[in-house]
């Protein structure tokens, strides 16, 4: 099966297509409309129809979300804090997608990273200095996340087994494993509900200035930007992208495709593990049994919309984070279950595909 990390068939080249000269400036704007703004607007409209169908006024709902997450001080701070794990996940997916690997197992990697950091950090408080506790937590999370991708990585690199299925299966396993570990191994003996020990608030990632925003946000931003630079500006990134674009050609060029595939899996899954740690060490402090925010698949459309570009991903994560915060509150206040965000994300994926299709055909006509 040929791998296309792209919604239509040719987006590895879209990064460079944007800088073609003054003649194309207007069409660049048009492209932005068809492949970015258009799909977002269409997705919100499509979801509005579904809201109306179940008897919820879409204007009230969207209005409430905006008000709650962007136009209130506390809401904005929550939105900024929630961005951290999503940003780490974007970093994870940007590596994988640019290197032509479908890592659909980020949920399992995220949760195992979260559980391991929640299990170790509280025990290290007082033993190690504060910064070292956090550093160890993050490092272990990255390691465990990466370990969880070893089987799909080896199967893909040396046996050519499709990673879509293997990573999904490992994700189901990882989610159950995380919950098992919380109940059987890392359970806090002092609580009745099964959960890990809690990292005291003062030992978590520091907050920014006088706000409640966790500094995980800063690390998330750094991660996305570093990953972006690594993939676009270093020879290692070029190697990974070459494998992604055409494994056979990469092999002819003397690159070790299996080793680079293993590296892609390790890095991508490692960042997914960091994402879990950022949520625990920054915000939650512990993991309760059966906790699973399932951000993994939801971040995919953002990364596609951003065309695997780090800065674009950051902007989209901000709005997506606002949507999450708003819809969580709307679930309590307006009685619309949070599952509605799944509908919105799905509409976004579908409209995004349609936008690419329209764009693809327009460009074909121009040629």
């Amino acid at each position, binding site marked *: 099966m040929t791998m296309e990390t792209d919604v239509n068939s040719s987006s590895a080249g879209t990064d460079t297509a944007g800088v073609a000269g003054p003649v194309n400036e207007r069409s660049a704007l048009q492209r932005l409309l068809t492949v970015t703004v258009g799909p977002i607007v269409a997705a919100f409209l499509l979801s509005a129809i579904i809201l109306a169908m179940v008897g919820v006024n879409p204007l009230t709902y969207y209005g409430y979300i905006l008000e709650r997450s962007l136009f209130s001080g506390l809401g904005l701070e929550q939105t900024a804090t929630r961005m951290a794990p999503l940003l780490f996940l974007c970093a994870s997916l940007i590596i994988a997608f640019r290197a032509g690997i479908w890592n659909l197992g980020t949920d399992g990697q995220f949760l195992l990273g979260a559980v391991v950091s929640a299990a170790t950090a509280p025990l290290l408080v007082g033993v190690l200095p504060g910064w070292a506790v956090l550093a160890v937590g993050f490092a272990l999370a990255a390691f465990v996340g990466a370990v969880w991708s070893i089987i799909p990585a080896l199967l893909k690199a040396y046996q050519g087994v499709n990673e879509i299925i293997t990573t999904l299966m490992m994700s189901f396993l990882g989610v159950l494993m995380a919950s098992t570990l919380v109940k059987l191994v890392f359970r806090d003996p002092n609580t009745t509900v099964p959960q890990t020990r809690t990292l005291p608030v003062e030992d978590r990632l520091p907050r920014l200035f006088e706000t409640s925003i966790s500094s995980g946000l800063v690390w998330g931003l750094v991660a996305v930007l570093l990953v972006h630079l690594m993939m676009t500006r270093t020879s290692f990134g070029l190697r990974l992208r070459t494998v992604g674009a055409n494994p056979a050609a990469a092999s002819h060029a003397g690159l070790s495709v299996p080793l680079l595939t293993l590296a892609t899996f390790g890095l991508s899954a490692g960042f997914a593990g960091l994402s879990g740690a950022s949520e625990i060490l920054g915000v939650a402090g512990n993991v309760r049994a059966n906790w699973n925010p399932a951000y993994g698949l939801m971040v995919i459309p953002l990364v596609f919309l951003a065309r695997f570009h780090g800065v674009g991903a950051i902007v989209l994560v901000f709005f997506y984070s606002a949507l999450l915060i708003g819809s969580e509150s709307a679930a309590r206040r307006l009685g619309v*279950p949070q599952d509605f965000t*799944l509908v919105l994300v*799905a509409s976004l994926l579908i409209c995004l595909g349609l936008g690419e299709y329209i764009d693809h055909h327009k460009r074909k006509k121009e040629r």
Partner: protein
Amino acid sequence: MGGLLTEAFLSSLFTGAIVAAVPMLLAGLGEQMSEKAGVLNIGIEGMMLMGAYMGFLIAFKTDSLWLGFAGGILGGVLTAIVMAILCVRLGLNQIVIGIGLTLGAEGLTALLHHFQFSRTYPRLPAPERLNVPGLTDLPIIGPSLFGRHLIVYLAIAAVVVLALLYRRTNLGMTLRAAGERPAALDVAGGNVLGIRVFAVLFTGAMAGLGGAYLANIGAGLFIPFMTGGAGFIGIVLAMLARGRPLWVLIGSLIFGAALSLTTALQVAGSNIPTDVIQMLPFAAVMLVLVLFGRRAKLPAALGVAYERGAR
């Protein structure tokens, strides 16, 4: 764990294996046709969930299991129509749209269920069973093999029908050509997009029926997110079956047994947490993929949209 090998345990293990296998069998058979025709249908999980929801809703409203099954097929086909238009007609990326359909079906069914039933989970009455005099009364295997709902035997019959279809008919050859060499089929006057649309809709129907079975017979109720990866396991079955329906049946029984250990161990009163037991089917899938993944044979044009005259 002392009474693990009692008759009650074995009986619930066999029964559970078959009940758990049927949805995966139906999904696997459906996915197999899509894959043969060159469409990797990741949206099958969503089709199954839509089938489960619509199948349950209609069975619940009409008190008829058969109308419920029809509703399940309808739900699956409606979802498959979106896939057929976007991925076959327009040639969009099958994985992106597939993930989209799965997420969308998860969200939509949870949303609809919430507004329909709020937080209640009404149950259907227990289904009437086929009763073969003599055979059904056999110990342990009797009730599990001969006391099932008629739909189970129809699913097994579908294995035979599909095997004949793939081997003996022009339709079977056309399906294979669409997956292996779509351009050659096109030149020979075959309708590549038409046959692929047919395959995707068939997948939707089978997955929807599987979902309806899961909800109406397997559980007797609908719970949001209830398919829990059964559709994805269907994809694995289709991948490993190398195009043979019989292998899908064998595979689904193996995974069904792994899944039914969950309930059987609970019946036996073991104190292993459910999370560990629920890992069994996925662990079995991974084990099989590690052992036999290399031998999975997939059509050459799988996952590639066909566009006439493109390179």
